[in-house]
């Protein structure tokens, strides 16, 4: 909620003193472009990036309007190129669609840090940093398998509330989930897609609960839509199953900690990655390497780990959750 | 009303009008199309605010800032353009704005009963209060408008061409109502282009010309020639053109042939022909199927059976485009909804059916288009004579001329006219009559519908009398008498 913003912002940035590359250097202007902040995770992405940039005295931050229209995002990036920013951080609405403008920036001598949704061609970015979507599905599945095995359930009814079905990352998450379940001989009994919003999560889940009068486990891809999913479960008075969330919101982690509802775990897709991306952009702009690595340069790709947060380790992850 | 002026962008509609109306009289307002009659009564109804001038009511000066204010003073108005709401029922329309209600809840029973009583007193019990107004015929809608005016506790009723959409028997009924009203001391301000009506019910007459009062409070029996002179500034009389210019009509070719046209519920087994150069009139009561026949001939509706031939070739049923290509034109009954593009200029309205003539491969030659349309407009003496003016701002009569100009421009073999002089002033009428005759003389076959029997008898060469969708009589118009036609039209009722 809004009064905890301050904490959250601080929680998701890295203090500037820690790494060796943080000593002030050449001034860097970072241009930033992301999809429209139409759900919590993306909103957190933009906010974290901005907050991280604020930590550096040698960085100025130029954010373009978030948009879900690839045509408009291309124009926005073009504008940032025209403004001659030093480094670009781009979370494309659609990686493939933004590839050519990414390449154009690189050709114009502006290094691009590609965030989350990946470009189609490695010539279009200097560095990619993002989460492990397939791994997220795998980790969610493994938690479910472990829990069901412990309960001795042999033929479980498993539900999946996916995120926006048009995104490649949704596909990968579902694939990881499916393949990992298959290894244990389990399969998804019902899969429906919501829109990453509480509104859509509630609507979809209330219907799914009608479709399956008994469930054993549910994986919900996104904790923001999870607010609605949980509400639907409460309103239907259902509690015979347990649920795993996704992305790692503060609300979800608090629920896990309280252990009062169906939500037992969430697989993290760190929204802090945008803060890291800004840090990387600065290092690239100043031609520095990453302090703790031996290498002189920033690596070309960094895949973040998707941790499984349960009641046992929730305190460790709460500070980096998004609101 | 003294010295009323009102200016619209581009037109000074009223330029110093004086008018006084006394209780119990029927005060007639005369004037050519565009003279400002409707504008004047809208000022009186509180619908327009005058730019200057004074209004007095019972000797006291008043301002009427809104229609409600006028109604509160006991002024109710029947507007020229039927101002009804199609989607509402008859009863709801009658009481619109002053509903029978309690705490905002409508009293539906009471409303229906009151509406039924009003309609009954108007001689139209067949109009059910619950009927949707959009499904009524124009004549019936006019009755509803009248009922609406009477639903107010009224001391002055303003009627703007109420008879335009009524047939003669309907008009008689209207006059009975007016008689009852004036007997009760209500004043009536009556607008009509029909001299005979003014003779029949008028007490006094005021004549408007170009937004000014040119004569006020004349006795109703002032000779027609004098009134027309006042209205037009010309000494021309109201006349039908000569039927046969110089002797016997030559035996021209048959252009239109209609065979066994049938549309159950509207008309049955209608057959007739129209020759080149001939004007045929169709007479009948409201709802006798006249418009329906014209529409079927034109292909605007598809008849159940029967054929229409133009120059010996059968038209495909229900296809207007084919009819137009074969040289048929229609000036429909309701100009505004069926013929005009109100927002568009006169030129565009006139040229719309002839664009092919002014284009190559679809590319328009706008100079030629404008010139040709302007020429027809000028020929019809349309006023104001500005072909680029939006048709919406023209008076009713001039709008009708624009529709005729459309078919003049296109050039027709067969011209179908549905109530061509509705709302057209006396002067323009004779022009229209002359025009129709000229057209016929140039070889066009004209078929027209009119609710004014004298018009049919005066203008047509031949008349077809229609009763309940069947042609019951056919004769040379010159040989028919008005009373005879009326008897024919209503024969059935005498038998029942």
């Amino acid at each position, binding site marked *: *909620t*809004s*009064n905890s*913003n301050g904490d959250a912002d601080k929680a998701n940035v890295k203090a500037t003193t820690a790494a060796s590359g943080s000593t002030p250097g050449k001034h860097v202007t970072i241009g930033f472009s992301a999809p429209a902040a139409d759900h*919590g995770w993306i909103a957190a992405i933009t906010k974290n990036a901005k907050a991280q940039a604020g930590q550096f005295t040698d960085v100025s931050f130029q954010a373009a309007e978030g948009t879900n229209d690839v045509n408009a995002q291309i124009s926005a990036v073009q504008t940032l190129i025209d403004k001659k920013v030093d480094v670009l951080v781009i979370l494309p609405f659609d990686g493939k669609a933004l590839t050519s403008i990414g390449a154009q920036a690189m050709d114009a001598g502006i290094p691009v840090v590609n965030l989350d949704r990946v470009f189609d061609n490695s010539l279009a970015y200097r560095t990619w940093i993002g989460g492990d979507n397939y791994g997220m599905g795998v980790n969610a599945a493994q938690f479910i398998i472990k829990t069901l095995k412990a309960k001795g359930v042999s033929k479980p009814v498993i539900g999946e509330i996916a995120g926006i*079905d048009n995104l490649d990352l949704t596909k990968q998450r579902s694939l990881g989930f499916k393949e990992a379940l298959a290894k244990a001989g389990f399969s998804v009994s019902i899969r*429906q897609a919501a829109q990453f*919003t509480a*509104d859509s*999560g*509630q*609507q979809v889940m*209330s219907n799914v609960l*009608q*479709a399956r*009068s008994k469930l054993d486990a549910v994986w919900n891809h996104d904790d923001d839509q999870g*607010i609605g999913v949980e*509400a639907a479960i*409460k*309103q239907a008075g259902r509690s015979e199953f347990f649920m795993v969330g996704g992305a790692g919101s503060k609300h979800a982690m608090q629920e896990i900690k309280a252990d009062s509802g169906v939500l037992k775990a969430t697989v993290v897709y760190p929204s802090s990655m945008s803060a890291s991306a800004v840090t990387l952009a600065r290092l690239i702009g100043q031609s520095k390497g990453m302090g703790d690595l031996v290498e002189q340069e920033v690596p070309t790709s960094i895949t973040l780990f998707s941790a499984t947060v349960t009641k046992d380790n929730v305190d460790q992850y709460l500070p980096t959750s998004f609101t | 009303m003294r010295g009323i002026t009102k200016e619209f962008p581009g037109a000074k509609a009223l330029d110093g009008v004086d008018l006084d109306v006394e209780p119990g009289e029927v005060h007639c307002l005369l004037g050519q199309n565009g003279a400002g009659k409707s504008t004047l009564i809208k000022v009186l*109804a509180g619908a327009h605010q005058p730019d200057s001038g004074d209004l007095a009511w019972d000797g006291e000066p008043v301002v009427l800032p809104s229609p409600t204010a006028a109604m509160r003073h006991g002024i109710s*108005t029947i507007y020229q353009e039927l*101002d009804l*709401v*199609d*989607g*509402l*029922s008859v009863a*709801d329309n009658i009481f*619109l*704005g*002053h509903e029978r*209600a309690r705490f*905002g809840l409508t009293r*539906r029973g009471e409303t229906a009963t009151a509406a039924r009583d009003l309609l*009954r007193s108007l*001689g*139209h*019990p*067949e109009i*059910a209060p*619950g*009927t*949707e107004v959009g499904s009524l015929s124009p004549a*019936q809608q006019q009755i509803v408008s009248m009922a609406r005016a009477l639903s107010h506790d009224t001391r002055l009723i303003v009627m703007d061409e109420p008879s335009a959409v009524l047939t*003669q028997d*309907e*008009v*008689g*009924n209207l006059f009975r109502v007016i008689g009852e009203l004036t007997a009760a001391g209500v004043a009536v301000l009556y607008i009509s282009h*029909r001299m*005979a*009506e003014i003779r*029949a019910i008028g007490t006094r007459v005021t004549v408007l010309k170009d937004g000014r009062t040119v004569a006020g409070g004349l006795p109703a029996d002032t000779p027609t020639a004098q009134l027309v002179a006042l209205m037009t500034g010309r000494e021309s009389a109201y006349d039908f053109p000569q039927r046969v210019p110089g002797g016997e009509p030559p035996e021209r070719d048959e252009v239109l042939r209609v065979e066994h046209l049938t549309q159950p519920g509207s008309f049955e087994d209608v057959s007739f022909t129209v020759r080149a150069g001939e004007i045929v009139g169709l007479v009948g*009561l409201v709802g*006798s199927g006249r418009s329906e026949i014209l529409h079927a001939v034109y292909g605007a509706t598809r008849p159940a059976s029967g054929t229409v031939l133009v120059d010996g070739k059968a038209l495909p049923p229900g296809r207007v485009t084919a009819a137009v290509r074969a040289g048929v034109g229609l000036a429909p009954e309701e100009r505004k909804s069926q013929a005009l593009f109100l927002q568009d200029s006169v030129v565009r309205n006139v040229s719309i059916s002839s664009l092919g003539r002014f284009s190559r491969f679809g590319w328009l030659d706008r100079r030629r288009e404008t010139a040709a349309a302007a020429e027809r407009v000028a020929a019809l003496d349309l006023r104001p004579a500005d072909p680029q003016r939006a048709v919406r701002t023209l008076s009713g009569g001039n709008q009708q001329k624009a529709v005729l100009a459309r078919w003049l421009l296109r050039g027709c073999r067969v011209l179908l006219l549905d109530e061509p002089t509705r709302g057209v002033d006396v002067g323009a009428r004779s022009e229209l009559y002359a025009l129709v005759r000229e057209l016929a003389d140039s070889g066009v076959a004209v078929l027209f519908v009119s609710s004014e029997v*004298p018009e049919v008898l005066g203008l047509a060469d031949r008349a077809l009398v229609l009763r*309940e969708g069947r042609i019951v009589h056919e004769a040379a118009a010159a040989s028919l008498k008005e*009373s005879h036609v009326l008897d024919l039209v209503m024969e059935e*009722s005498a038998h029942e």
Partner: protein
Amino acid sequence: MSDQTTPRPAQEDAPGLPAQAGSGAGVATRPSLVKEGPDPGAAGPGGGLGRQLLRLFPLHQMHSLGLLVVLILLGVVGTATSGNFLTSNNIVNILTSAAVIGVITVGQTFVIIGGGIDLSVGAIVAVASVWCTTVATQSHGLAGMLFTAVVVGAAVGLLNGILIAYGKIVAFITTLAMMASARGVAERISDRQSQVVTVDSFNRIATDKFLGIPLLVYLMAAIVVLGWLLLNRTTFGRHTFAVGGNPEAARLAGIAVRRHTMLLYLLSGVCCGVAAVMLTARTTSGASNLGNLYELDSIAAVIIGGTLLAGGRGSLFGSILGVLVFTTITNIFVLNNLTTDIQEIAKGLIILAAVLLQRTRGARSPA
């Protein structure tokens, strides 16, 4: 539902006026002869039975009737394809799902019949929901939250109404602008975060049941009934049809057209405020993305329900049937676990089929 098209009356009550020869002018009193004309009802579709039916269900209402048939067909399909469809739980679920958009559609129906359109409904829901779930507002408890949501909805609606009626900006543009601005305000207030509701009594709006049916359903039902009465049984309703059907005629009849237009948007805003309460309780959170695309959903329901986009004619009952049709389609898809693309394709086809099925009135002019 709309009573303006009750069947034509029996002809018997026409008074036989005495026939009387016309006097000199030929225009004097003659009997009214309209009654001798062919029975207008006879030209209607079908013969005896058809007429009887028409008497019971006037043409205008046939439209809603057609939609009811569509809904029943959907029910048959649902029952055939999923054993869970025809359970009381599921029916209640469908109704609950329909509740929020149903309430919004009540307001939208008034606006569209009145000749307007409201593209800002979704954004109003968002801003009302966010405003009523700020920490400050939540500290005032249930009453404070309810009050805030409804007042915010009303205020935004009123602003729409003033701009449209008195500022004379076309409704499409005004409410489009409001859609952008109101959502922006909602984002600003919430900082784009979902604001979880901690006031339990508020969340109970979505969980409490009476006779097994959630409060939300009663709330929707009450608002629909009130709306129906307002539209069909009050002067306000009559004026709405008049203002939408022929604003000039309405003005000449002494109706304060502008004020009425303004009130229509206010009404829509209030409906959105109530819907915001319902949706917020249902999702247990306020967020700036709530009600996304609800404008399209509600307009579609209104139009499919038989209201003319141009105004002047329409039926609230039809709108609600429209909402139920859409909700039921979604329900059936989820019950059958169909993928999104198939859902989309089928949804389009069903919309078309529904319109074709309910085609009882004659051809309207295209577009």
